[in-house]
């Protein structure tokens, strides 16, 4: 079977949708975070696929940027979650409603 652009994009879309559902529906902050990474990587996959099928390197360059930024983001985000957990003894979003009036 020939694997075309549409297959890559379908996988990318499924990954993105799964990640989005995870962000909206899961309660644990760590899991939400992992879902976010999943969405980023879905985007990466789409970019790489486009790059391959258009014979251009722009998409792959962008992917490297995304990986770098994601790494930095994860380090900051995880640090925040750990700090939050130490303070509140919880990493569940239901407990984090301090912004509500």
């Amino acid at each position, binding site marked *: 079977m020939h694997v075309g652009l549409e297959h890559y994009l379908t996988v990318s879309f499924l990954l993105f949708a799964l990640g989005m559902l995870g962000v909206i529906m899961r309660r644990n902050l760590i899991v939400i975070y992992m879902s976010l990474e999943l969405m980023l990587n879905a985007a990466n996959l789409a970019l790489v696929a486009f790059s391959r099928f258009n014979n251009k390197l722009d998409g792959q360059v962008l992917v490297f940027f995304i990986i770098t930024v994601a790494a930095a983001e994860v380090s900051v985000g995880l640090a925040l979650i750990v700090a939050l957990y130490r303070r509140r003894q919880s990493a569940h979003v239901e407990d984090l*409603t*301090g912004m*509500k009036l």
Partner: protein
Amino acid sequence: MQDQLFPWLILFLPLFAAVFITLFTLHSRGLSAFLSIGAIVTGFILSIIFINANGWNPATTEISRTWLSIGSLQVDFGFKLDALSMMMLLIVTGVGGAIHIYSVGYMHEDSGFSRFFACLSLFTFSMLGIVLANNFIEMFIFWELVGVSSYLLIGFWFEKPSAGDAAKKAFIVNRLGDFGFLLGILMVWGILGSLNFTFLKGQLIGNPAALGASATIAGLLVFCGAVGKSAQFPLHVWLPDAMEGPTPVSALIHAATMVAAGVYMLCRILFLLNPDCLSVIAYIGGFTALLAALIAVQQDDIKRIIAYSTLSQLGYMVMSVGLGGPTAAMFHLTTHAFFKALLFLSAGSVIIALHHEQDIWKMGGLKQKMPVTFYTFLIGTLALCGVPPLCGFYSKDSILAQALSQQNYVLFAVGVFVAGLTTFYIFRLFFVVFLGKEKSEAVSHAHESPAVMTLPLVVLAVFSVIGGFIGIEGIYHAMFTGKTEESAGFASTLFAPFTHSPVAASLGILAVIIGFVCAFALYAKAEKDPLPEKLGGLAVAMKNKFYFDELYEATFVRAHDFIAAVMDWIDRWLLEGFCIGLIRGGTDLTGRALRLVQTGNIQTYAFMFVLGVALVLWFVLK
């Protein structure tokens, strides 16, 4: 040319004094008085020098600078220099100067001494502005400034509620007149396209019908200003109340100068008034003269009697203008400034001696206690009555002669009758205050006022005696008719009224004699007023000023209050309650509804965010 500088100096020195006193010398009484008196006396001296150098009809009759220029509207700031304005300059600075000096004595115990002189100087500045103005707008500005300074001075003792009320009343009643005045000015400008007196006069002489059908209306609207300022019927109610101010103010503003501004203005714009206007003016003047004289007969407050007398004399002047006799009007204005200022200042001297007692029935027997005041008041009284050869006789006679020569016998009769009434009420005052028995404890402690007060009295008394035959009338006559009369000898000037119009002169004197005899019979030894028993209801009406205040209270004030209440209701309920309430309530309600969306749950936000992105995508990709 250095002469051109003089009018500027004369006008602006008092303003400088007022500003300087207000800013720097409020705590230094001597310096304030010195500045204020210095400014006006310098003005007087400069006026004399100017007139000496240039004569009564100077070569340059107008000095003017463009002040505003908007489209076709050009407003100048300039001076009109002719016999009329220069004579008024002398009156304002001369009589005003005497009153300034007198004030030093009258006010010296008052804590607002410096403030008083600042206001006086401001007033002098405004009055000189009216006198010198060469166009309508400039005159109107100074006209209003005079109103403001009059407000400040009437309400000088603002701790007294009555003084505050009187000040407000004077200001508001004047505003009514000024509203008409402004409309008249706009009308004249709209039709003739200029505000300059000289230009307007030239145009109207060239084409008397230039104002067209609205000539009468324009003239009467301008006359409204004079009705307010000169306190003519029906806006006469403010002047007697203005007596709440200090007595020098009453003398300066409400006798000698400000109230004369209306008459002066009428003489200045005489060319605008057509015969219809003039007859209205004449009858309003005559009616005011009669009404005020009747009211004066039954007043008990020394200052109010003189105030009603002022009203009555102003009525004479306005009547004279209406009868086409500006010469007589201005002549009477001049002599009236002398003797009425004299009467007021003498009354002030009495009031101070009796520690602010103003009821004439608590005075009496002051002849021995205050000889100087007695004699100056006597001269003022005789001049007011028109006893020859005092100045009042000549000016009043020329008004009566004017009425006779116009064959207006109604107004002539009114004039003669009022002359009799004038004699009656002023001698009533004189007998009760200065002769007879002491009617209260305060009189026994009274003593003569200091020289700073009596000296101005003597100066004014001298002018009240000689004012009639020193050629003042000739100057006005030359100004208004353009003819210079050959200077008649002193003796013939002295007897001019009898040769000129013997009927008017003799009837005038007869009225004076009758008035005097009545006053003597009733009041020479009176302990209390015998007139109410004799006249009954009429006397009560006179005492209550023919109920004009009550009438205005019941109609205009009531109507005004009603409109105000309706407007208050509209503001409170329609504007604030409905319009503003709707907007405020709507915002509040929307805010409350939107607040429900703010759950604080991060996943709700994320969900909405996704929803939003989906919506945007749908719109973009559709």
